[in-house]
């Protein structure tokens, strides 16, 4: 199973901005970034983010696969 050239996937589209995979985006926008306490007192951590992500992304993955985008 060895290849003559190293197998590195360089995924990303040729547009000015990368279309970042939703799973990567949500990891960062829900988990990282500057955290300033807003006035809207919903604590993001209070929502089960794993559940939210799991549902959202299973749907997204299914659509991607159906559309042949993978």
């Amino acid at each position, binding site marked *: *199973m*060895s*290849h003559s050239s*190293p*197998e*590195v*996937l*360089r*995924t*990303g589209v040729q547009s*000015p*901005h*990368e279309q*970042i*995979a*939703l*799973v*990567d*985006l*949500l*990891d*960062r*926008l*829900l*988990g*990282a*970034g*500057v*955290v*300033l*306490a*807003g*006035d*809207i*007192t*919903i604590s*993001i951590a*209070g*929502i089960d983010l794993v*559940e*939210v*992500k*799991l*549902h*959202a*992304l*299973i*749907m*997204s*993955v299914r659509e*991607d*696969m159906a559309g042949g985008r*993978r």
Partner: protein
Amino acid sequence: MNESGTYLYAVTRGISPDRVDGIVGLGGDRVRLVEHQGLAAVVGTVDLAEFGDDALPKNLEDLAWLERVARAHDAVIQQLADRAVTAPLRLATIVFDDAGVRERLETWHDGLVLALDRVEGRREWSVKAYSEPVQESQEGSTRSDSTESGTSYLKRRRAETAHREDAAQTAARVADEVHTRLASFVVASRRLPPQDHRLTGHEGTMTLNGAYLVDEARGDELQSVVANLAADFPGARLEVNGPWPPYSFATLETE
């Protein structure tokens, strides 16, 4: 009467307000700057019927809504990052009005300056590593025929388990080595939790989900380093993405 709130996308500095002309945020409204003490928050106006206390928790569980908002939020971040140093905020940071924005900029001033200093002139790259699925033995893992003794069957099963565990340990060591070598080359690094294959559809096990902060001019170098690592570790599949805005590195130092 529809009440509105102020949605914060990012913090920046050193630009004039017209620099964000043409950047459109959630709801199709143009974003604007709220400036205070040398910093500027990039904000937009949102409807509290959608983003307020009652609606937000429900909407965050609506898959289509979450994706739409994340993409719109990210579009603002990416456009801003083309024009100015950008410290991206988390999704759904909403205050009641611009006075609230200035209050946050004041309270978090020093930490925000440090975050902006850290990411200025730099971009985030993602490097992931996957191990290949372990092949089961040719004979099949649980089948045994009448000619195979119980002892022989158990020995074979133990050998297969040991093989799987060895492969997993090797894959983990490779991931650590890849991360260590990347970390020594870049400005900053973080290991994010590996992603579940149910979320990504990937094959094999994700052994590394690394985020790396790299000087803008050194993106090509990073890709070369990863290509060399792929050659050094042929059993691992490496995936590079970037350059992205520095989501994972614009964090506030908390006490």
